[in-house]
């Protein structure tokens, strides 16, 4: 997700009306789901977006993750993706392909599938619970609150990098957290205006665009991040907030992301 932010910031992602992925050397779930959401906002039904693909090794990995299937005919590639060799797993990674989720019933189904998948991975019961709580709460937020026509994209991956880790990512192409909370009484009363601070407000228990009786899903996900000594990054509008269990929230500005992209990472026992 950080790589996607950097490419967007350097104006290198969209070049001459083409999506330029030629410099991409590594893909993480957050970047993959975030890119998928961006593509949704950049394309229209009758105007597919041209793509300069990354090197075969990376493009093959994206093929393995079903990125090209998920994008359908929204993209036109500079190479024949059907001829790509399916990429090898990186660093002992096991993975779940890019998925789209559009209804609350699908949230339930996908959560069940990830629960089964992660349980089979040999993760401790607490780790599986933690991952599924984060995943299900953000998927539900995306499907219920985001007003995202494409629903949500999600991907989960376990891999080794200084120990075993798990990464969970969810993204949508909706209205974004700041838009949903900008006129919330709590934001107005507290003078909260920046997108980053509005994202931070979304994590406060009981703050919801719907009613005081709702809210709590983001906070629940953050509790899991705290318990698992993990890191959760949320990007929405021009806000970029990094939450950790040990040092709270760090708010930054970023290039505009239409929708919301969230990535959580935990070390595994």
């Amino acid at each position, binding site marked *: 997700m950080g790589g996607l932010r950097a490419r967007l910031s350097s104006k290198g992602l969209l070049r001459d009306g083409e999506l330029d992925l030629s410099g991409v050397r590594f893909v993480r779930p957050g970047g993959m789901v975030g890119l998928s959401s961006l593509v949704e906002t950049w394309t229209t039904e009758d105007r597919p977006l041209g793509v300069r693909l990354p090197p075969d090794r990376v493009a093959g990995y994206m093929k393995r993750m079903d990125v090209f299937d998920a994008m359908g005919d929204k993209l036109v590639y500079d190479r024949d993706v059907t001829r790509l060799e399916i990429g090898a797993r990186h660093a002992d990674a096991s993975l779940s392909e890019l998925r789209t989720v559009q209804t*609350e*019933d699908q*949230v*339930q189904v996908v*959560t*069940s599938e990830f*629960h089964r998948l992660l349980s089979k991975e040999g993760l401790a*019961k*607490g780790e*599986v*619970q933690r991952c*599924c*709580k984060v995943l*299900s*709460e953000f998927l*539900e937020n995306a499907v*219920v609150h985001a007003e995202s026509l494409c629903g949500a994209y999600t991907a989960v991956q376990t891999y080794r990098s200084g120990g075993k880790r798990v990464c969970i990512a969810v993204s949508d192409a909706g209205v974004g957290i700041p838009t949903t909370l900008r006129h919330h009484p709590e934001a107005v009363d507290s003078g909260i205006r920046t997108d980053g601070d509005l994202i931070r407000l979304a994590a406060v*228990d*009981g703050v919801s665009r719907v009613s005081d*009786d*709702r809210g*709590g*899903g983001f*906070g*629940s996900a953050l*509790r899991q991040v705290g318990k698992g000594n993990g890191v959760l990054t949320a990007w929405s509008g021009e806000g970029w907030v990094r939450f950790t269990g040990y040092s709270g929230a760090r708010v930054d500005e970023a290039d505009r992301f239409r929708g919301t992209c969230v990535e959580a990472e935990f070390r595994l026992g």
Partner: protein
Amino acid sequence: MTTLSTHAADLGALDDIVALPEEGVSGVLAGRKGGAMERERLRRALASLGPGSVLGVDARTAEFMNFSFADECFRVLAQDLSAGEAEDRYVVLIVSTGEQEDLIEEIQVSLERKKLAMFLAEASYEGSAEVRIVGMFPDYLAHTLASVRPGDTNETLAERLDLNLTTCSNRTDRLAKLRLVRKRRRQGGLGYKQFEFFPVLQDAEPSTSKSE
């Protein structure tokens, strides 16, 4: 979370037990939609029971529950009961001893944020369970609940707890609203109304309490 130090409660004495999730349904419980559907099922089960009945909600096969599900199912149900729905009917959530802390945590948080509470029975084997209270349940209420004996009035309970009558009435009223004690009205000796209180789980016989 407050634990009532009790005799083991007899789950066999419950008037009905419904499984959550239903048999044949996934044990992964996620989302408000699913939570609302299960809440409606529990509501129907409660309505089908007679006054004074206790419904057990057996969640021992649930593998996973997220906050949204817990909030929509248990918090809303507890809120509705507290507001007077399904009068004189009671709910006990049943979980497996020491194995479902992740699930209990979500119910605890969802109830706590609205100052609600529920019975939670940790069942080590069929028919017997240790009873706790999940949600927001301050020590003074736990102490009062543990002191209620069948047929107590506010007067007798206030005297036993060395409280003034108003304080005691406020506490028993709160416990009754949370459906943690049974409250029955009777005509007092001088013709005015008087309330009597009874434990919900007769076999639990709460005596002392401790808080975690």
